[in-house]
């Protein structure tokens, strides 16, 4: 066994004791990871993703005593209304003190996954590790073997969780060289409605750590979920995440995935459409600078007829940064009347930034409407001139057009405070874009 492999195994933290059914799942996942290790760029799925360095670091177990974070420090990451349910995890550890959870609808549950695991019950048995395939990648296997905590959101049938849930995962300098394995579980039952935001943020922008995340989502028949992800990790961090969504009949799932941070950030988003008349909207925005790499891999599984998926991912790249987009759409032979549209648009602000974009449609049904398109371009000179001809200065015109490029996809977010926050983040970043 190579030294690297040994280090990888040491990265497996001591998982909290859980219910009996989970033990074998974790053990199998641990064994799988011990066999496969982390993926490398020789794996087709990771070809453009420089994951190599991850396997060379002797990652520490996540700190059991998290670093210092208080309400004042966290204020920068909160948004929306004070009555929102806000759960805070510092260096992967749930903070009761920084968390705000108001009165919940009957039967609903919002809290730490670890606490729920300690209690036991059928809810977790039915869903936890049941959606995201353990063998999705070495990272997923490692996460399954090792996750320590995460957010749990359960909305019972017919309930409207009228306040959004904001899960904030913040790192401090105590996370230096640590691997954090966290798992979220979102379950929206029949006819229920919810809005959930995941934020990955840092108080230690220069710190190196590995955030290895899995979010499992179950969207039951007739339910509605908006799911936003804001990734603002340290620009030295590795952020590897899988979101797996299972959707059922007549459900509506909309996702917005924003990536700003990380030395390397990879987000896999898989949506499985398990029944008819499902609607899936996937939006994304990545802004990279310096030597950052942002990688978005999405997969939509159209397994049944009469479903619609709509996907728009946009990227703004500067300096020597890189982006990867891979969008798979699988349409099974029985998935007639599928309506799927995928778009990836990239704006390059420097000559040295680079994009690898690959739409991948595998369509086995004949009566479908499926389109895709990818563009990589620069700021439009004619539009710049138009703005300048109205008195707007060259630099302001540039910023306006970059902002406009981003705003077009941000506008798709349903919940206004989220939209405003995403806008703010773009404008904040543009202040420093070269």
């Amino acid at each position, binding site marked *: 066994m190579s030294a690297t492999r040994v280090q990888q195994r040491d990265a497996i933290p001591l998982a909290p004791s859980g219910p009996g059914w989970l033990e074998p799942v974790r053990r199998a996942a641990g064994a799988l990871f011990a066999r496969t290790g982390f993926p490398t760029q020789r794996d087709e799925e990771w070809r453009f993703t420089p994951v190599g360095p991850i396997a060379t670091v002797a990652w520490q177990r996540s700190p059991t005593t998290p670093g210092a974070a208080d309400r004042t420090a966290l204020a920068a990451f909160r948004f929306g209304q004070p009555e929102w349910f806000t759960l805070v995890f510092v260096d992967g550890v749930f903070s009761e003190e920084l968390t705000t959870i108001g009165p919940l609808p009957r039967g609903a549950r919002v809290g730490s996954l670890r606490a729920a695991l300690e209690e036991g019950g059928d809810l977790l048995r039915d869903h936890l590790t049941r959606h995201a395939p353990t063998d999705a990648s070495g990272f997923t296997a490692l996460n399954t073997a090792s996750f320590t905590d995460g957010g749990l959101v359960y909305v019972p049938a017919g309930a409207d969780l009228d306040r959004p849930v904001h899960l904030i995962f913040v790192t401090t300098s105590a996370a230096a060289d640590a691997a954090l394995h966290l798992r979220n579980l979102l379950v929206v039952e029949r006819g229920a409605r919810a809005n959930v935001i995941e934020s990955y943020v840092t108080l230690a922008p220069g710190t190196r750590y590995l955030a290895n995340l899995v979010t499992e989502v179950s969207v039951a028949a007739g339910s509605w979920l908006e799911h936003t992800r804001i990734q603002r990790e340290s620009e030295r961090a590795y952020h590897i995440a899988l979101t797996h969504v299972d959707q059922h009949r007549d459900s509506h799932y909309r996702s917005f995935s924003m990536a700003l941070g990380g030395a390397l950030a990879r987000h896999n988003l898989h949506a499985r459409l398990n029944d008819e008349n499902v609607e899936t909207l996937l939006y994304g925005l990545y802004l990279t600078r310096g030597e950052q790499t942002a990688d978005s891999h999405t997969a939509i599984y159209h397994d049944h007829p009469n479903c619609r998926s709509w996907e728009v991912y946009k990227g703004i790249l500067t300096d020597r940064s890189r982006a990867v987009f891979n969008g798979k759409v699988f349409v099974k032979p029985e998935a007639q009347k599928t309506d799927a549209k995928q778009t990836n648009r990239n704006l390059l602000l420097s000559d040295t930034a680079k994009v690898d974009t690959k739409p991948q449609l595998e369509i086995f049904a004949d009566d479908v409407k499926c389109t895709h398109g990818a563009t990589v371009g620069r700021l439009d000179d004619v539009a710049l*001139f*138009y703005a*300048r*001809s*109205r*008195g*707007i200065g060259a630099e*302001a015109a540039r910023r306006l057009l970059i902002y406009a490029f981003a705003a077009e996809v941000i*506008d798709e977010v349903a919940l206004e405070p989220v939209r405003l926050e995403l806008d703010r983040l773009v404008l904040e970043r543009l202040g420093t874009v070269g």
Partner: protein
Amino acid sequence: MTMLDIQDLRATAGDAEILKGISLTINAGEVHAVMGPNGSGKSTLAQVLAGHPSYTVTGGSVTFMGNDLLDMEPEERARAGLFLAFQYPVEIPGVTNAYFLRAAYNEIRKARGEEEVDPMDFLDVLEAKLKIVEWGPEIMSRAVNAGFSGGEKKRNEILQLALLEPRLAVLDETDSGLDIDALRIVAGGVNKLRSTGRSFIVVTHYQRMLNYIVPDHVHVLAGGRIVKSGDKALAHELEARGYEWVEALHGVPA
């Protein structure tokens, strides 16, 4: 007072010389029509005046209210009071018309030493301007020109003209593609904005718009030169005899 003085202006795009020595003097309050066949250089003249970076001025001079226009950046020209209504207005998805127009309005105000207005006050300013183009406020929450019909785009140009109150407005084929109702509204808007201190260059292929916006002078551009100038009667004569007439007159190949 001389508003604009163009002397022997020459401009190229790439290797091609498009403007081949244009001279034109416009006084405050005057309306000059520039007519000519397709490809004669009308849009190039308009774009060169506004400072489009694709064109290189290779000779001549342009003086705008006593200043060297060619020495200014596009935004400086706008702030000095020059306005170009584009033949093909540009779509900017993601920015609302309200945001864009307020940004422009505030830049122009700053240049005049006036205070910027906030979004609420801007709505009041807009109300009167929207009336000029017979529009409701709905248009302001749409993205700039995105998905606008041809007529809506032209109307949006005139709305910006009304808002920015330039000293010299260049309208590049603002009439093209308009049905008769839209033409009446757009031309009516321009007429409301005519004043003794404001000059217009109305670029058009057809005489039609000049029935509404009656020019003081008419110039015919062919092959990058002004080949004939006259009063509004010239526009009618062109309508009757066609552009071949002036082109033949001056040995310009059609």
